[in-house]
């Protein structure tokens, strides 16, 4: 899993990269080596160290941190993180698939316009977007104000809906942040789908629902899998959205890790161990998924 700075892209083409290849790869390899591989090595080293009373890292070998990771408290947090990230992934799939499908089957000119629309939120900083949601959801915010104006709730002061600092707000924030990462890969696979296959299914007696279940869904599955990966992995480690929109009511692994690196009770070695464990989890699940895919196509 160590991202070795090798020329994988070139070697898969079936030839050794050669001098020019290495020269072209050098900037990227240097970058990856300095800022990905080296920090990972440091992280791994930290995770086997200890901390002193002041929170400084003490280079004394110990597996104590990993034992702590499997403490019930942290396992429960890990469990709820998986739950929230999973829920986010599923919701992104449900919301994103129809959008991606519509985009992928639209005429080419409209496709590029829709793609733009999906990308527009990225023009604003992630933090600004999250704060925008907060102004919408807070008790005297936009949503409650609208509901009051529409006389759906009686009074801004006596009965506003409590939306901020709830699991709902966290999931909403996560879905909002990661939706494009679900839409884009699904769009890619829908766009590649040969329209005559859909016609063939209809011709053979499959109505719209069964055409979707038997033909469209299986053929766009790789896009869904890629999207799920792109949403699930960062969601589980997300701390900003949970911090800002969940208050301290929703605690996810990302927040725990963050707390180990800053603040009063910091414990860098333990934070490192949590991080390494999370990475190992992703690596194993990815390898399992890849193997099952290989078995199926065989």
């Amino acid at each position, binding site marked *: 899993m160590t991202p070795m700075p090798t020329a994988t892209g070139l070697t898969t083409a079936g030839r050794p990269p050669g001098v020019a290849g290495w020269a072209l790869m050098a900037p990227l390899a240097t970058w990856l080596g300095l800022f990905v591989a080296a920090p990972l090595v440091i992280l791994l080293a930290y995770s086997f160290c200890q901390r002193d009373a002041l929170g400084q890292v003490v280079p004394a070998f110990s597996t104590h941190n990993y034992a702590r990771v499997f403490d019930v408290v942290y396992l429960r947090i890990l469990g709820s993180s998986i739950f929230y990230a999973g829920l986010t992934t599923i919701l992104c799939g449900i919301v994103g698939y129809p959008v991606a499908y519509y985009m992928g089957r639209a005429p080419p000119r409209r496709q590029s316009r829709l793609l733009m629309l999906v990308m527009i939120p990225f023009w604003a900083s992630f933090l600004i977007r999250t704060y925008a949601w907060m102004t919408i959801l807070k008790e005297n915010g936009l949503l409650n104000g609208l509901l009051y104006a529409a006389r759906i709730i009686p009074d801004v002061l006596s009965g506003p809906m409590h939306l901020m600092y709830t699991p709902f707000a966290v999931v909403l924030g996560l879905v909002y942040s990661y939706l494009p990462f679900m839409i884009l890969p699904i769009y890619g696979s829908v766009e590649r789908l*040969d329209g*005559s*296959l859909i016609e*063939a*299914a*209809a*011709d*053979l*007696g*499959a109505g719209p629902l069964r055409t979707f279940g038997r033909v469209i869904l299986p053929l766009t599955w790789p896009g869904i899998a890629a999207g799920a990966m792109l949403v699930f992995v960062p969601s589980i480690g997300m701390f900003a959205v949970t911090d800002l929109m969940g208050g301290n009511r929703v605690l996810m692994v990302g927040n725990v890790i963050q707390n180990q690196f800053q603040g009063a009770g910091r414990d860098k070695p333990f934070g490192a161990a949590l991080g390494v464990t999370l990475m190992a989890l992703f690596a194993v699940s990815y390898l399992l998924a890849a193997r099952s895919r290989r078995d199926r196509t065989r």
Partner: protein
Amino acid sequence: MVELIGVNKQFGEFVAVDDVNLQVGSGEFLTLLGPSGCGKTTLLRMISGFETPTRGTVWLDGRDVTALPPYRRDVNQVFQSYALFPHLNVRDNIAFGLRMKRTPKADVQQRVARMVEMVGLSGMENRRPNQLSGGQRQRVALARALVCEPKVLLLDEPLAALDAKLRRAMQVELKRLQQRVGITFVFVTHDQDEALVMSDRIAVINRGHIEQIGPVSEIYHRPATRFVADFLGQANLLPARVVQRETFETELMVADEIRERIPSSRLPDGASTAFLAFRPEKVRLVPDVAKPDDRSACEPNSFITTIAEELFRGATDQLLLRTPKGTELTAVVPNGSATVLAMHRGDRVLCHLHPDDLIVLNAGQ
């Protein structure tokens, strides 16, 4: 079995199909033949249900199906690209239609197995489409449609992607298959040879309407319009004007230099001009031995030409002939006969056209 009544299809301003009436009999092999963009595929797609007519009705087996979606119509289509499901193997591809109709499992298995054998794909049931050759994919597409035992099988240029040799073999095979299963075939192609080999009847389509529909030999020997004569097989097309019309015979001046006498009954009453069409294989050639000018003058329906070009076409030789005034004609003779008769490039030959072989077309058509 299939009937189109007053069918019209417009895409925006463009009229793809213009007021077509068409009847296809039970068990018939009908070909829709025409150049690309003539509307033949749109016509087919209105039978399968992928397009809805702007006007007119589509009938299947005595039922108005104009408003029915494709999955409720008892027809199946073989797509030009085959449209095999890439995630399913050969067996599951063929079984797809039966499963959609909720056919009992044992029945599905049996019918699929029989169909696999019929199209000669035994032993390949577990392969995916990308592990098959073009010809094999073609067979799977055919089997997948036929196993549903549709009332009508629609084929959209199914042989276009195959190489010439395989295409010829599949033409014969497809025709045999159709005769064996007795299902009505509506076949779309732009390849006139294919249409001639396979069809019972041909409908020649041009610019959204049917130019002519009829049995193969009639379309070939008695084309009704210049378009049909030109599109189906090779044809020499020359303008003619009436020189003298008598009760039984009319004398025509063809291309301002060739005199032809034809039975007056072949010419519409009162026509002063016409087009003459004749097939290259109907041009009879005699080596011009001596006294050419006298002969051409006295022999009826004969004239002198020069061989301008000689093309070797395998079983036949194609000769390009040029008359003294520069009119060009094509003649086809069995391979070798040109050599035997010692006719070569630059030689003068005597052409003879029998009135029976002449197709007289209205000047307006």
